[in-house]
């Protein structure tokens, strides 16, 4: 399977996603340049973390207009898998491929920390190798990670099982203390209606090695592999 990893000029986690796919998963990966109009036959598109175009306006606000995003949007609309980590999640919201928005963290500071994620839906193409309720250890690193949406949208997301991960404490409780950025209902990850577009603020590509403190991110990539290959 071929993963296409978009490199915006200010992407800085493209390299980490590339290594997770090629070294940990053993699959093929290509970098997709933001000025191009070609997904190079990628089966899965990853929008990596970083600061796409500096993000001095609103994170992802300019990236949605870049040439490659036309192709990414078309891929998503035709049911192709698209994942956005961190800045990638912000871009997916700006591009209208996911609902809601990511605002400045409630405490107004950038936050880099290990978080615990509770798996809320293990029946998606991104999470089918996890167990529902399982706790994952995955790092975050962002200044604009507070997920917000209208009450109706939040209810809809929950009602349709489209909330994928929530920030939890060590015992798995969804508490205010465990919420690192003030996200509504502790939401860390969501999918679109079609179930083929995932956005998440945490970095599973940084949780793929025992040496680095966690391997909990690997099954996210393996889930995609098992579902798309099947």
């Amino acid at each position, binding site marked *: 399977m071929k993963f296409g990893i978009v490199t915006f*000029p*200010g992407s*800085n*986690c493209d*390299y*980490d996603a590339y*290594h*997770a796919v090629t070294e940990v998963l053993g699959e093929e990966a290509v970098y997709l340049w933001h000025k191009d109009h070609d997904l190079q036959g990628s089966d899965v598109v990853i929008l990596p*973390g*970083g*600061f796409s*175009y*500096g*993000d*001095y306006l609103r994170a992802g606000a300019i990236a949605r207009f870049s040439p490659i995003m036309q192709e990414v949007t078309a891929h998503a609309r035709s049911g192709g898998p698209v994942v956005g980590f961190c800045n990638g999640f912000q871009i997916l919201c700006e591009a209208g491929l996911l609902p809601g928005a990511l605002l400045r963290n409630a405490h*107004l*500071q*950038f*936050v*880099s*920390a290990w978080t615990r994620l509770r798996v809320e839906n293990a029946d998606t193409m991104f999470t089918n190798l996890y167990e529902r309720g399982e706790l994952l250890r995955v*790092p975050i*690193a962002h*200044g604009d990670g507070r997920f917000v949406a209208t009450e109706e949208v939040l209810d809809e997301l929950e009602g349709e099982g489209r909330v994928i991960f929530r920030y939890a404490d*060590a015992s798995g409780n969804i508490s205010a203390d465990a919420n690192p950025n003030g996200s509504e209902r502790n939401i860390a990850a969501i999918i679109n209606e079609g179930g083929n577009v995932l956005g998440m603020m945490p*970095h599973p*590509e*940084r949780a*793929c*090695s025992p*040496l*680095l403190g966690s391997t909990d991110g690997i099954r996210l990539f393996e889930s995609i592999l098992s579902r798309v290959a099947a």
Partner: protein
Amino acid sequence: MSQVSPRQGDPVITPALVGEHGLTTGEYDRLVAMLGREPTFTELGIVSALWSEHCSYKHSRPVLKNLPTTAPYVLQGPGENAGVISIGDGLAVAFKIESHNHPSAVEPYQGAATGVGGILRDVFTMGARPIAMLNSLRFGSLDDARVRYLFAGVVKGIGDYGNCVGIPTVAGEIVFDRPYGTNPLVNAMCVGLMHESDLIRAKAQGVGNPIMAVGARTGRDGIHGASFASEDLSAASDAKRPRIQVGDPFTEKLLLEASLELIKSGSIVAIQDMGAAGLTSSSAEMAERGDVGVTIDVTKVPTRESGMTPYEILLSESQERMLVVAKKGHEDAVRDILTKWDLTAAVIGEVIAEPVYRVTEGTKIVAEFPGSRLVTDCPAYSPEALESPDVRALRDIDPLTIAELPEEADPAWTLERLLAAPTIASKAWAYRQYDSTVRTNTVVGPGGDAAVLRVRGTNKGIAVKTDCNGRYVYLDPRVGGRIAVAEAARNVACTGARPMAITNCLNFGNPTRPEVFYQFREAVAGMGEACRALGTPVTGGNVSLYNESPAGAVYPTPVIGMVGIIDDISRATCSTFQQDGDAILLIGDPGGELGGSEYLATIHDTVLGRPPSCDLDHERATIDTVLDAIGEGLITSAHDCSDGGLAVAVAECCIANRDAQAGAEIDLSDNAGRSNRELLFGETQARIIVSTPNPERVSQIAARHHAPAERIGVVRAASDKLEIKLPRGALRAPLSRLSAAYHNAIPTIMARTPEHATFDELAPVAAH
């Protein structure tokens, strides 16, 4: 030599104008003698920048000559943008530390941010990809609202810049002490990884080769930043805020990628950051290193606005710019790479055979200096050095004459206060704002002794740390200089890495004052002794003088940035207790020296006494013991014993990792000759606390290295307290209390800062 005539509209050179440019009468006479005529305004500006302390090291060069700089693995020592050491497998590490103190004192956010930007560029211009950032920071007391403003601004500046470029900030130190109140120290270190074959030096070569300006356009910001950094801070400093540069980390990220592509492309022969003194210093230094002439036409430099004078273009410190010597005929290849990254590249001059440094405005010559004398003719000074009698008197006071407070009858009371002292307390409030895991190499991140990064494609790791205890250097500069190196080495060794080489950032006061120059000379001598004894040569660094304001000088603070190599990354060791039942060993002497300690500063609000002695043989023995024991896989945790002494070190082993705290039982009761406070809070050097399931084997290794290794206790993972038996009584403290003191101290204080406090609401420098 060609005809140089004053440019229309430029000011006339007067003694007052010369004075404003920071040149002494003697230096001006030297300039006139070199030129054989009066300088033009443009020439005066060039010389004022290049002969500033910041660029010329005129007060420090003679002293720095005595530092050891070589080892078989040192590929590049001092004199380049960064030092480089080989780590085997065809790989090398480039690293350098630099100060941005003065800008941060008046504009903390941009000052710190551009400090990060500058040091990143120094590393990637060597051909290395930056893999880690460190920061060594000093502030005054956090009880002061302006200090909180400076601290918050500096931390945010560091975070926003490094996070955006995507380089993890993994380690460093933060110290709070009054002498840094109006003059904080902001030292940033960058570490890069490269193939040895990609090493490139900033040496202009090849007559006829084009000189190109690449990256951001040149604007009117930061003009005379180098001169600003070369004078004391004063009431007038706030008015010099326009000399401070403004950073754009997004452009830096583009420049980083473009520069590494340029170096790989083979189209260039040299590249240098336009940092302090901008185009002037980068072009003059590259010409001097290559022993060639250069000519630059300022009308070819891409600018942000029209009407900039040669003076402004030459002295602008606009950020995110590089000067490149390209191979003739490769100009388009260079342009293509820069265009790919949406940056500009313009030919602005060329390397010439004639031995001159020439600047033109179109066809008209506006500045011209003979050969490389612009750099080499800079004066060097060896001012008078004399120890301050006041400091000598302080050092001669015996700390044991300071009476204990009644509360100290319970040593747990003292320990709790020490853990809550901002210098010792957890710095998570700061490092949580730094992305420490991007690039997926961080094996041991911030919060421990040193950070460890894996080296992909090998089994190796790189350990990095900065260190310096300015209080020790103040009380005894020679000993303090030694300890700065030894402590950095010890910290690196605690992770299992062999200390290899250092970079240093020497932060001192005004060198024309004899007591300051004495501190400088002695501290550097002490550093040199330790570097020789520990086999860690100096590969470069930075000198920052004039760190003083009307309130006085900072503590002399020679910050050491240490790099170590760990051969088997799976052995990388962290600082906190890991395993129930492990024996706790103290490698090194039980000691008890209280001079210059955090105990005296925090509990008794005093700085006096003789700082702990530093026996370099003992340091070596301790380091070798720990490295061998880690190498044999015997060690589950290793932690340096430093600020706050043994009690603080053990407490940190118990509580520093909030997710996995462990209790401990320690027995120091058979040290009857020493008081409780000496045993618990003395800061004797050459000590490391390790935990191990195999204490017998560790003791054997220690004996082989002639290092003391006493079994002092045991890890009780399920216990919720720390217990230390003493010759008289015991220290008993619940972990919850120690943990609250340690983890909540800084967040609680910082919560006092009004969220939207601006510069003007807080007292400016002069009022302090």
